[in-house]
């Protein structure tokens, strides 16, 4: 899973529209990860195709903004990825200390 995909997925534990995802990921990472529009579009397409996120409605203020949320499969994948990243960090820290 790429960094961008991971951040989009974890941002969608709450319902958000496209631009909301960009803002949340930027805030979450202290401005380190800024999603560009084309990158977000490509990632949303892939996540939808793989059933990891779903549409749950539209923004009442603007019907063209679709609201997304992570699916059960997506949540499962987040947990799996967190475990993988954790063990990567542990391995790195341990080997560096030796």
């Amino acid at each position, binding site marked *: 899973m790429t960094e961008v995909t991971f951040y989009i997925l974890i941002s969608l534990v709450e319902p958000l529209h496209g631009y909301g995802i960009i803002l949340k990921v930027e805030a979450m990472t202290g401005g380190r990860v*800024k999603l560009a*529009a084309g990158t977000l579009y490509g990632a949303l397409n892939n996540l939808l195709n793989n059933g990891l996120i779903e549409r749950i409605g539209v923004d009442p203020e603007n019907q063209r903004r679709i609201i997304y949320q992570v699916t059960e499969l997506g949540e499962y994948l987040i947990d799996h990825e967190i475990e993988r990243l954790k063990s990567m960090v542990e391995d790195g820290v341990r080997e560096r200390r030796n």
Partner: protein
Amino acid sequence: MAFGKGVIKMKKIKKWFWVWNLEKEKAFLEEKAREGLILKSVSLGSYTFEESEPKALTYQMDFKGLDRKISEAEYLQIYEDAGWTLAGNLGGWYYFSQESRDEMDLLIFSDNDSKAAIYKRILAVLLITGFPLYYQTIFVFPNLSSERLAFPSFYFFFRIILILIAILHISALVKIFSMYRKTISGIRE
């Protein structure tokens, strides 16, 4: 027709756009904006500009592809929210512009994977459109006998044209594929 003060002047510039020249195309449009010509619409083989004050604009082109999972309206909304203005579109290509400011905001792709995805979408379209073209060139033509045709010279001409298109098509496929390979093998941030 007289152009008075406040009348919008349009200028049409004929230009072919080759997909493997994306960067050159972007530079051309940005240069025009600095000269005071702002892109208003894109059509096959030409651009239409509106005369205005010189502007520092950044252009980006994206190819939406065949995927219909995300509608055009939603796609455009994502770009609009990110500060991009749609300048024109043609055959699945979308031209966006925004006033130059923070460098990061001026990119439409923030990693190599998504940048490469645009080439993947172009390749998908090329392969689908290529199938009938190659079928015609490889299987249908050799089996046509000219005597049985009503207009042999017309068919000869038609054949030459199709073979030229097929050659162009193959070179586009090869070029786009090599750009795709180059992009995915680039160093990741």
